[in-house]
Structure formats: structure tokens, C-alpha cells
């Protein structure tokens, strides 16, 4: 199965990269950008066909490694 785990910074956590990109977009003249926050996606191929089990494994992966839950949130999507 193919899955995507998206990890984003919790609101309130400073995001220097997002800030810099925001500034750069403004100076490139991209219109109307009010704020940018940067996150990560992980596209994962995972064996097995049981969606619930896969979801559990991915949750495990995110908790153990993919996200630092002190500062980050994550979301899991499974695309069959």
C-alpha cells in the first residue's frame, strides 16, 4: 500500500525557514502571500493489505521517528 505521512510544525512554534521563504516570495513579487509554514511529507510504500494494521504501523512510525511530537503534528493518509 501507498501512504503519505504529513508532518507540520505546531502553531506557536517559530519557523525560521517558513519565515525566510515568506520574505523571499514577497521580494520575488509573488502576490498576496501573508504567511508560509514549512513541513514534511513522507511517501511510504508498505506491504500488507489490512488498512487498520497499516494505519497502526504508520502511527507507530510517526510517533517513534517521523515527527517530534514536542513541536510537530502529523497526519496519515492511506491511498490503497
Amino acid at each position, binding site marked *: 500500500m501507498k501512504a503519505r505521512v504529513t508532518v507540520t510544525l505546531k502553531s*506557536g*512554534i*517559530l519557523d*525560521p*525557514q517558513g519565515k525566510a521563504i515568506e520574505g523571499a516570495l514577497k521580494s520575488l513579487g509573488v502576490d498576496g502571500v501573508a504567511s508560509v509554514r514549512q513541513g514534511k511529507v513522507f511517501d511510504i510504500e508498505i506491504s500488507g493489505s489490512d488498512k487498520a494494521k497499516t494505519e497502526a504501523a504508520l502511527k507507530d512510525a510517526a510517533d*517513534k*521517528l517521523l515527527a517530534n511530537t514536542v*513541536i510537530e503534528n502529523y497526519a496519515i493518509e492511506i491511498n490503497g
Partner: protein
Amino acid sequence: MKSAVLVFPGINRERDMARALKLASGQEAAMVWHAETALPDGTDLVVVPGGFSYGDYLRCGAIAARAPIMDAVRAFAAKGGLVLGVCNGFQILCESGLLPGVLMRNAQLKFICRDVHIRVERSDTAFTRGYNAGQIIRVPVAHGEGNYEADEETLKRLEGEGRVLYRYCSADGVVDEHSNINGAAQSIAGIVSERGNVLGMMPHPENHVEDIMGCTDGRGLFAGLVAHLERAA
């Protein structure tokens, strides 16, 4: 002082660290491979050195923090054992939960290698015994992600409990935005754990222990550790 220097794939300042430890203590440090599950018997000090463990891919220190040896380090620290993490080591200690907070990308979004000044905030700890409180020392930094961040409450606690041991400052000790090399919260360069036995810091004292580097301000940290352990023994 029997030290154990952890070696994760991608770590690259382990030799610098081992050399500094040897100079300070006269003893060779044990190099401990990440896949081990125990520390050498009689270890007094565990050092997590600098480098790019696992390429610093994902987040700095994240993958190393989950290596087998880290369980042994957690147990060692829980018993009050001394743990020193420098640069990538600091990042690993944060990721492994031994220290609070995270190290984000430098505010300028660039890797930065240069000598900086840091102020020693207190001298009554194992990691600062070799200095005077308020002393300003010069040591190099070399990192892309050294911007310390934690939530408001954690920062308050760190300050309240006197757990910020090193702070970026100017040559004459002024702590301000200008001397804050990477944008760290409250100019934090190094913090200790609640019990005071785990230190994480971004600058590299191990690179300023010999005359040839033009400065030996890093010696105090190692000499202090040796003195601390001798007193404890």
C-alpha cells in the same frame, strides 16, 4: 576519568573529542559503537560527539536518538551518570528526551563556522567547575541547526532553575541579538538536565584545548569534569 564516546554512523567529531578527553584526563576514551547495548564497565562520563549522525536527515539527531546504545545511556543518566552532548550530541540528547527542547535551523538559514564567545552562567556544576561564574570564553561553533527553541514554560523553568549554563555573548559579555549567533531562545548555547548531570551545548570546547588553535578556553570544561569526578571519588 573513564569516558565513553558514542559513535553513530555519520558522527565525525569523535576524534577531536577523544583527543581533548585524553589531554584532560590522561586516559584514552572508549569508542562505543551505536549498535552496542551496554556501556563499558566503570564509565564515568558518556560523550555524544558532534557530526552528522545519519546525515542529519529527517531531523538532526532524530535517528541516532533511537539507536540501541541510547537505552543504556538513558539508564546511565537516570542513575545520575554524567552525559555530555556537543553539537550533534546536543541534538541527539534533545531528540532522545534526555534534555528538553529542540534545535532548529539557524536563523540565517546558513551553516556557520566561527569562534564565538559564551558566558559561563555559573561555576557550581560538574560541567562548569573549571570556570568562574560570569567568565567569558571563546570557542568555535560549526553547525547549521543550533537555534535552541522550547515552549515558554520550559524556558521559564530552565531559567528559574539555573539550568542555562552557557549563553552566547559578545567579547565583553553582552548578551544581545547581535551576539546570538543562531537566533537561539534567550541566547542559549548550553543547558543541563533537571538533575544537572546531562549537558547539551552547541559550541565545540574540544576544538579549543591546544595552543595551536590559538585559544585554550575549552580546556576548563574538561578539566572541571576531571576535578569533579576526582572529588566525588
